């Protein structure tokens, strides 16, 4: 690859997908998909979860082959049987979850698997510096990845595909892990890339961001491309309606139902990890009856530890936790649950469900000592089945029946089942971690409704979320967690995502 000093230093690429069809057993994941990725443009692909964006991306990146349809690169038809083929044609992918080895340097991460291009020494180092300088990434080849923040890691991922000669970069929800300031920095990088001749396929469902960065917009719904839009003239409302075929739900709560009765009180709770570092320091927090307390923070700043210490999955080294009148500082997870705490875990596949159990057995999970699913030391199958059926009906879980395994359901329906289960047995407190992450818009609205209704009935809720709109819309009060400390409190009625972003990053602009 040549590196002339002209502005256009990457050969441009023109990719056209037409009539793409991809079937999986029982579902048509993509059909009649048409997409034209112009050279030197940011093309946004939007659609709600389950609209078929991921499948399309996998096809474009060579992970899966389409059953029908063609992909042409610069006018000639291509077929990919692996990501290696795709990158050979100049198509590279940056995943939402980074695939970097923490204990290696930036250089080592980048050359790993691409040793033949520029070697693993000074040649590679020079090339990395070149790309980094050209697009304003500001990365040093010899820095250890574990020292880098999320935004820098993302740049390493982008650099990785550029290094391999990518001219079209696919970014899967790149802003999901970033705070607003970092998003601005990312967009600046993307503009540089596009100015340099690269194309970008930007996958997102955040309409404001899409309108800000995209040159072209394609909307997907139910597995097909339903329309294109010009960001210069398109409105948020118009795009949203194209995406879901209806109006967007809003998480806003109405009147306040906060009472003076504390449900949960944390006093100076400190959690020390195995390395002796405080991952949660001196956390003091009160949740009242009928109150939703939101926890905002960049992932990894102590919110998981906060949740786990309340749930008895972690022990605090000092401080106390009181649930109503009961000290639960030293209680086991089971005792905490028996005391009336519902728990919606962050990762539903790992913590919320046993995927191979049928729904009725999943109803028992987390409630192994509580009626109606057990009777003394024995399981109460009839009770569990009846109550699972109730959840399926009340929470609109789309399933053929309660004997279907949890694995067979879509993410949104799994989550609705979990929410229903955790609200069973009249809990006094709900600890909800990212309750609507990865669920479709319909399920999201339903979950918000359920949380609001429970709050009105006096439930206290501790809501941890990365979705700032969700936090602002649902919470009565927002606490910001930064490096293990609760550093700021906001009133959601007069806070903007920008303010929260500043507080979440400690006031610095990333």
């Amino acid at each position: 690859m040549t590196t002339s000093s002209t502005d256009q230093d990457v050969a441009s690429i023109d990719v056209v997908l037409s009539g793409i069809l991809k079937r999986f057993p029982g579902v048509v994941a993509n059909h009649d998909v048409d997409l034209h990725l112009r050279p030197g443009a940011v093309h946004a692909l939007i659609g709600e979860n389950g609209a078929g964006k991921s499948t399309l991306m996998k096809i474009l990146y060579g992970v899966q082959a389409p059953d029908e349809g063609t992909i042409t690169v610069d006018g000639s038809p291509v077929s990919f049987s692996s990501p290696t083929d795709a990158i050979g044609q100049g198509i590279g992918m940056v995943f939402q979850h980074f695939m970097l080895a923490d204990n290696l340097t930036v250089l080592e991460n980048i050359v790993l698997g691409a040793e033949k291009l520029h070697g693993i020494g000074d040649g590679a180092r020079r090339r990395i510096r070149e790309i980094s300088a050209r697009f304003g990434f500001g990365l040093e080849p010899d820095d250890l990845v574990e020292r880098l923040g999320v935004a820098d890691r993302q740049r390493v991922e982008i650099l990785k595909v550029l290094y391999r000669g990518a001219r079209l970069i696919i970014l899967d929800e790149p802003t999901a892990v970033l705070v607003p300031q970092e998003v601005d920095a990312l967009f600046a990088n993307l503009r540089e890339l596009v100015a340099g001749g690269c194309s970008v396929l930007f996958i997102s469902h955040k309409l404001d961001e899409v309108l800000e960065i995209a040159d072209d917009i394609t909307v997907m719904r139910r597995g097909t491309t339903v329309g294109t839009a010009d960001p210069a003239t398109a409105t948020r409302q118009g795009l949203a309606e194209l995406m879901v075929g209806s109006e967007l739900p809003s998480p806003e709560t109405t009147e306040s139902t906060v009472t003076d009765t504390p449900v949960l009180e944390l006093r100076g709770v400190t959690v020390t990890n195995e390395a002796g570092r405080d991952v949660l320091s001196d956390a003091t927090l009160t949740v009242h009856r009928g109150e939703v307390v939101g926890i905002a923070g960049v992932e990894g700043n102590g919110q998981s530890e906060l949740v786990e210490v309340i749930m008895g999955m972690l022990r605090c080294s000092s401080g106390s936790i009181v649930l109503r009148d009961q000290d639960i500082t030293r209680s086991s997870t089971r005792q905490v649950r028996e005391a009336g705490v519902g728990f919606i875990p962050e990762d539903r596949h790992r913590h919320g469900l046993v995927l191979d159990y049928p729904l009725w057995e999943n109803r028992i999970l987390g409630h192994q000592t509580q009626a109606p699913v057990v009777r003394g030391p024995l399981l109460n199958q009839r009770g569990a089945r009846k109550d699972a059926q109730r959840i399926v009906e009340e929470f609109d879980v789309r399933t053929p029946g309660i004997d279907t395994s949890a694995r067979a359901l879509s993410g949104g329906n799994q989550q609705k089942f979990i929410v229903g289960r955790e609200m069973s047995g009249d809990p006094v407190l709900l600890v909800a971690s990212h309750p609507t992450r990865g669920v479709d818009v319909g399920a999201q609205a339903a979950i918000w409704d359920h949380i609001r209704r429970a709050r009105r009935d006096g439930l206290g809720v501790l809501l941890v979320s990365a979705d700032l709109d969700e936090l602002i819309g649902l919470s009565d009060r927002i606490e910001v967690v930064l490096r293990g400390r609760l550093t700021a409190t906001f009133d959601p009625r007069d806070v903007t995502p920008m303010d929260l972003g500043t507080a979440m990053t400690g006031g610095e602009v990333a």
Partner: protein
Amino acid sequence: MKRLFYAVLPPVVAVLVALVATSAVIVVSGGSATSFISTILSVPDDRVLVNIINQSSMISISAFAAAIGFRMGLFNIGVEGQYIAGTTAAAFFGGSGIVSGPLNILATLVVAMLAGALYASIAGILKVTRGVSEVISAIMLNYIALTMAGYLVQRYGEKSGYTYITPRLPESSQPLGFSVVSGAPDVWALFVVAVAVGVGYWFLLSRTRFGFDLRTTGESPTAALASGIGVGRMVIISMALSGAVAGLVWMPAYFGSVHTFGTPENFQAGLGFTGLAVALLGRNRAIGIAVGSLLFAFLAGQSNELQRDGIAKQVVDITQGVVVLAVVVAYEVVRRRQARAEQEAVAARLDDRPTEGVVS
């Protein structure tokens, strides 16, 4: 109906594959495949039949011990060692006649279970407190058990011919067997222990809260933790439980015919490993294990007849090995197919929008 078909198909296919593979080995080594098949599939005579039933009782107890571990996500390869530990303790206790008469049977069973449980707990405690893989520690403990048993019997036992044995079980404590086939030896009285273990296993796992916790920990340790199960505690308890059952493996033979213990003559080494294979074959289900035990006992019983045709009886080990290998593969194929069929059914039923979660 379809479920039953899917449950039965893999083992049947596996047995066929195993017979074909064994025949191939026999042909390659210059034997006659037809005489192998005809001997293996012949109807066993009365004596062999009783032997098969007796053997299956020990194999199944061993398999249930292994299955308790498997369901919990533990690979208790130490069943063999726990079986030896249980047997040694039980044989000394039973032979001593501290408790007299029929009550001695019950007391000896308790001793066998306690010894097995204690021995298994070592691996469990090491795993929980020190993070030692239960596989590694159990393998070592197997050797230790065998050596210790040999030493103890030699040190405290009696001489019998060229080897040593534990004191013989008093006659007042020897139960009568079941005379199932007239003219043939009795089926061991403690065959009932195998049945009881099987029924208890089924009940514990599918009907009790403890069983639910155990299965859940095996299926998803993370979900178990979040649901309030003390995973470390469960590891120790289920390891001990597995060991307690393993301690019982020799008991049908001990009370039925041998009445003593001593290696190598008055013992049947290796049953602990057979149990692991049968648990895999039976997919850790009570019925599956019962059928698998009969199959393994049947193959072993028929193998004695092979020698008449000039075929080494050890070829049956090949058959047993291939059955397990083939069945593991077949179960996985069926599992995937069923999972896909279920997802298709859900999609078809709901006519929902395409979901990426379904395929990834």
